[in-house]
């Protein structure tokens, strides 16, 4: 299994990269960490004539933490974001989720932006972008634009990025004070794609729940945020029974079955993992430095 021939482009700047992408149009593909693209090339599921390799593009490897967001450049590897202490302090959910993205060896090369651009419903980071109300920053030869997550993910492996566009960064929005988060999943082996996964963010003010939201991995075909605040609003955090979210979750998701798990089993996992994730997130919301329990 070898890739078909292609022309390799090694731009040094974002402008050079976008001008190549503009020239080659539909015949081109961006190569970031290659951890999803190269397997597809090796199996000849994709045969682009031009690859625009980001490896040497300057200025894409930064992580910036501001009062509003964590901004992650297109060359930031999963492993580097996972280790980034400031990003962890600002948004513990990032590390909580990254620990589930493949094996460490894959995380060493794979980029967080690449995994969002790849838009695999079995990937963790697209769902995290959704739960954090994130934005994708895009550049092209004709200008720049920003795409909110809900306009970005169109379908399985499908986004609103045009072939001549480069995602230069994503911004994960920081969650309100008093928010705890958790990310739980079940896979047959740690590091494998999840049979099902759930991210949760629970906000507590003065001991009572003000907001509870969920997102899913391998359960919905595009990243989705499910607001389950309803039955819990105003309730004392410490006395909440989160299994009360079961009906909402069961009604909201229509997972697909495959060789790894039936649709019914996935739905069951989604319900059970939601309960666990909400409880974990709520427990962390109460802790000082919200969301920061053991990742």
């Amino acid at each position, binding site marked *: 299994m*070898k890739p078909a021939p292609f022309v390799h482009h090694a731009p040094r700047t974002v402008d050079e990269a976008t001008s190549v992408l503009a020239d080659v149009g539909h015949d081109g593909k961006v190569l970031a960490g290659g951890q999803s693209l*190269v397997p597809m090339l090796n199996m000849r599921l994709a045969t682009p*004539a031009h*690859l625009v*390799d980001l490896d040497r593009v300057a200025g894409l490897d930064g992580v910036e933490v501001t009062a509003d967001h964590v901004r992650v450049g297109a060359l930031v590897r999963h492993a580097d974001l996972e280790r980034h202490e400031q990003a962890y302090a600002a948004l513990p959910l990032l590390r909580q989720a990254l620990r589930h993205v493949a094996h460490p060896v*894959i995380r*060493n090369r794979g980029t967080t932006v690449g995994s969002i651009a790849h838009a695999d419903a079995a990937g963790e980071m697209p769902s995290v972008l959704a739960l954090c109300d994130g934005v994708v920053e895009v550049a092209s030869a004709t200008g720049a634009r920003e795409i909110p997550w809900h306009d970005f993910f169109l379908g399985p492996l499908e986004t609103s990025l045009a072939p001549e566009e480069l995602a230069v960064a994503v911004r994960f929005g920081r969650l309100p004070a008093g928010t705890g988060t958790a990310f739980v999943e079940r896979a047959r*082996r*740690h590091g494998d794609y999840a049979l099902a996964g759930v991210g949760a963010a629970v906000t507590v003010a003065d001991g009572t729940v003000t907001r509870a939201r969920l997102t899913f991995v391998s359960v919905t075909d595009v990243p989705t945020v499910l607001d389950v605040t309803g039955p819990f609003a105003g309730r004392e955090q410490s006395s909440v029974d989160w299994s009360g979210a079961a009906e909402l979750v069961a009604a909201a998701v229509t997972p697909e079955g495959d060789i790894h798990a039936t649709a019914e089993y996935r739905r069951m996992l989604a319900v059970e993992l939601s309960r666990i994730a909400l409880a974990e997130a709520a427990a962390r919301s109460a802790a000082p430095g919200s969301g920061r329990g053991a990742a």
Partner: protein
Amino acid sequence: MSGDPVVEELLDVTVTVNGVPRHARVPARRLLSDFLRHDLGLTGTHVGCEHGVCGACTVLLDGRPARSCLVFAVTAQAHAVTTVEGLGTREAMGPVQRAFAECHGLQCGFCTPGFLTTVTAYLEEHPHPTQDEAREAISGNLCRCTGYQNIVRSVLRAAELREAAEADATAGDS
């Protein structure tokens, strides 16, 4: 894809492998794993699946484990690669190699280069793993022969050997 068929171009690629700059003229689509094996004759790096799952092709890229079947040689240009050949020689084996030999951490040896590179980098960051941590550290590498028990043992033994080697080095300094 549409468009004209691509005419294969040859590129000059130089990668620092085990500390030595190595050069070959290869097509852009040459995988780093094939570059190492076919162009440089370093057949220690094994190739199992070519889609990132088995781990046999794992090398260190700038010191970090990476699947060489998922990196193009041309991308590795200007980066440093360590293959299993760079971890030690038959006469002077590295601690991880010695531990695998002592603990029978291999049978056919097909997966072994990937384990050795992965474990070498892992122990740099986590010099004293527990048994569970050792198991998780190798979870990205597949072995069809050993049942993993001896590999887990090898990881723990390698940690001991590293520590002993460091103690010796410190004793030697004073």
